[in-house]
């Protein structure tokens, strides 16, 4: 909460500065000004060795990205760098030459603001490059330039090798990957990512390492290389100090790997983590939808039915509609309905890469069907099962029911001579499992509490003030005691019982 307030305050200040320095701007703070204030923050971060400020800058990246254009970037570069800086020239060379309209704006702005006299820290250059890269990625015509810039920036970043650059570096890697992906050459970038990942792990550069592991996983999964992705996961440790968004991505990718390997419980845990750590649904709807799509399928594969309210969520409603149909089919245990739904939405599922996963649900449909039958009948002939579940033959029905009994889906037995299935009574709902579930939840709550205690920040030397205050209090107390001592006997009567009490 405080962070958000701080940000809005900053913006308000920026606005105020804008108005005094330059001609009045429209109400939202201009992107160029925001970049400038961000640059100031980065300089402060480098000067005070506090990555916190850099983080704050990077948080605005998403909203800033959407408002970038050539003119804004030009203006920002012009104002951040001194007149004859070589870095400025190299940065400007990436941007198209300014049109006359832009020039007039530059000239308007330039004399008012004080020109910097020396080059800002290299972090600023990388930050500006990151912004330019994001700008290039927003339109298809500049992909080629984006690729050049990405390669150039990576080389530059690696040559500079500054620890204070790491948080920005992590974001740059994201942009680099995006560049390669949009150019359709993601596989070619893999060796570069792998090398960079090794370097960053040697340098304990957690943020970059987390970002790169995610980049690699994404590129593996893009090409369905689940084996390699799994090996990467087992050979690396994901840095615990990585940011939430990186963790959310990581858990999502892990979930995808696990579900392919039939490890549904683990996949479910990972996806839950991904959902919890993901930014709010409205901010990042794409990720939210993708995770939920997969999580619905995993829940079904585990034999659970996802909650109905999930499908009414405003962000998810539309995206999950096909999945809702599947859920209904599984819930009613109707194979024919399941098959028609599957073929109806095949293209969509394939695009989501969930087609084969949903294909695996077939057996769950049958299991749910048998379970429903076993709950509603105490004795049912195999023929009827066959008819109700649209199975091909009684023989099949017998094997299937046998398997269901062995797997513990239903409690009952088959009487072969009579050709029916007898269903056992329902087990009570209370047992050690309840305690286990309770324990899991409490465990989660306690973990959450401990994590949040750890996540609090304690400003350096803040306890000094308290110490001083305590010192003052002690002084006052002494004085009071003195006064009481001096002040006389008439208080003694009142004091004595209390004194004994102490």
């Amino acid at each position, binding site marked *: 909460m405080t962070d958000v307030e701080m940000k809005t305050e900053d913006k308000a200040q920026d606005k105020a500065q804008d108005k005094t320095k330059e001609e009045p701007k429209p109400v939202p703070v201009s992107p160029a000004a925001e970049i400038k204030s961000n640059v100031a923050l980065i300089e402060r971060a480098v000067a005070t060795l506090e990555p916190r400020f850099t983080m704050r800058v990077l948080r605005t990246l998403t909203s800033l990205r959407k408002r970038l254009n050539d003119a804004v970037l030009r203006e920002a570069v012009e104002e951040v760098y001194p007149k004859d800086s070589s870095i400025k020239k190299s940065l400007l060379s990436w941007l198209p030459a300014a049109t006359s309209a832009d020039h007039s704006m530059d000239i308007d702005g330039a004399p008012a603001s004080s020109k910097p006299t020396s080059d800002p820290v290299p972090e600023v250059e990388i930050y500006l490059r990151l912004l330019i890269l994001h700008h290039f990625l927003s339109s298809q015509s500049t992909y080629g330039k984006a690729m050049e810039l990405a390669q150039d920036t990576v080389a530059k970043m690696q040559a500079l090798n500054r620890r204070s650059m790491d948080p920005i570096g992590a974001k740059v890697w994201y942009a680099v990957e995006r560049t390669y992906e949009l150019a359709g050459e993601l596989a070619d970038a893999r060796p570069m990512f792998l090398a960079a990942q090794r370097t960053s792990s040697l340098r304990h550069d957690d943020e970059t390492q987390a970002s790169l592991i995610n980049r690699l996983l994404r590129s593996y999964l893009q090409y369905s290389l689940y084996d390699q992705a799994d090996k990467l996961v087992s050979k690396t440790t994901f840095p615990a100090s990585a940011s939430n968004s990186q963790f959310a991505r990581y858990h999502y990718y892990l979930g995808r790997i696990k579900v*392919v390997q039939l490890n549904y419980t683990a996949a479910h845990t990972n996806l839950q983590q991904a959902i919890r750590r993901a930014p709010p649904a409205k901010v990042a709807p794409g990720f939210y939808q993708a995770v939920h799509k997969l999580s619905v399928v995993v829940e079904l594969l585990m034999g659970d039915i996802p909650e109905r309210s999930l499908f009414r969520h405003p962000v998810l409603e539309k995206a999950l509609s096909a999945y809702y149909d599947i859920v209904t089919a599984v819930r009613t245990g109707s194979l024919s309905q399941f098959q028609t739904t599957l073929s109806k939405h*095949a293209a969509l599922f394939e695009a989501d890469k969930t087609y084969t996963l949903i294909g695996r649900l077939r*057996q769950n449909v049958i299991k749910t069907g048998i379970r429903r039958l076993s709950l509603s009948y105490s004795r049912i002939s195999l023929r009827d099962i066959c008819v109700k579940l649209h199975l091909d033959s009684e023989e*099949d029905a017998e094997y299937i029911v046998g398997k269901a009994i*062995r797997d513990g889906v239903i409690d009952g037995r*088959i009487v072969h*001579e009579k050709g029916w299935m007898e269903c056992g009574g329902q087990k009570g709902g209370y047992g050690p499992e309840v305690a286990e579930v309770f324990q899991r939840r409490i465990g989660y709550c306690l973990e959450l*509490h401990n994590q949040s205690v750890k996540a609090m920040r304690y400003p350096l030397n803040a306890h000094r003030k308290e110490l001083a205050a305590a010192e003052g209090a002690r002084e006052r107390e002494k004085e009071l005691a003195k006064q009481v001592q001096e002040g006389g006997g008439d208080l003694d009567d009142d004091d004595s019982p209390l004194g004994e009490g102490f």
Partner: protein
Amino acid sequence: MSPPSHLPALYQELQRSFESRPCNLQNCGQLLAKLKIGLIEAGLLVPQPNSKLEDLVVARDILEIGAICSIRAQDVPSFDRYFSQLQTFYNDFSSVLPPSQREYPIRGLNLIRLLTQNRIADFHTTLESLPLPADEISSNPYISHPVNLERRLMEGSYSKVWHAREEAPIEEYKFFVDSLMGTIRNEIASCEETAYETLPLKDAATLLFFSSQSELVKFAQEREWQIDVVGGTITFAKKGEERVEIPKEKLILADLAYARELEQIV
């Protein structure tokens, strides 16, 4: 490096003995051993990006023949080795090399192999990484066969798996399907143990796909089933009802842990 001069001759000989009916396995094995040494000398066994295309195609062909021969010789570990070598050709060189006719049969064989070894997780991982769009999985006969087998196995339609032997797209699949039967029989047996109390001998034989009573009796003895010869029934020993015990130690530990955590919080 250019391939040694005797390689082409050996390769042609291999092709001849591979295509002759019946296939001369022993001869093939000897030729393959020689050819593999030749490939290593030419640096083609593990393909390099700068190798010539024609050489790569030949190398892939040799390995493919090797894979199929090892199935015919019922040598699964050897098939495994050939397949891992072929994977480089299939996955990393797919954009350069012309597609091979034998690629999907061999991929399918590999899928079935995973199925018979009960490596279901690997089966699905391999299936997901196939470079095929989802609708082609069901239309490609070589791939759809193992996929259907897996689906039926998971559902429990064992009789369909049994009948699927006739549907095998190429001869080599049958070898695996036969060995799959052993796995299935054990599956069915374990289902029967829990699902039935008693079962007539005759029906048990049909359920387990045994053609003669004596086979069934032998199998039943292995699994320690009680056979009532007079009544002609099998009785399955009921496992004792599992007693529900309160996991005392676990509960105590959990309570202590809660107490400790609460102490920290308050």
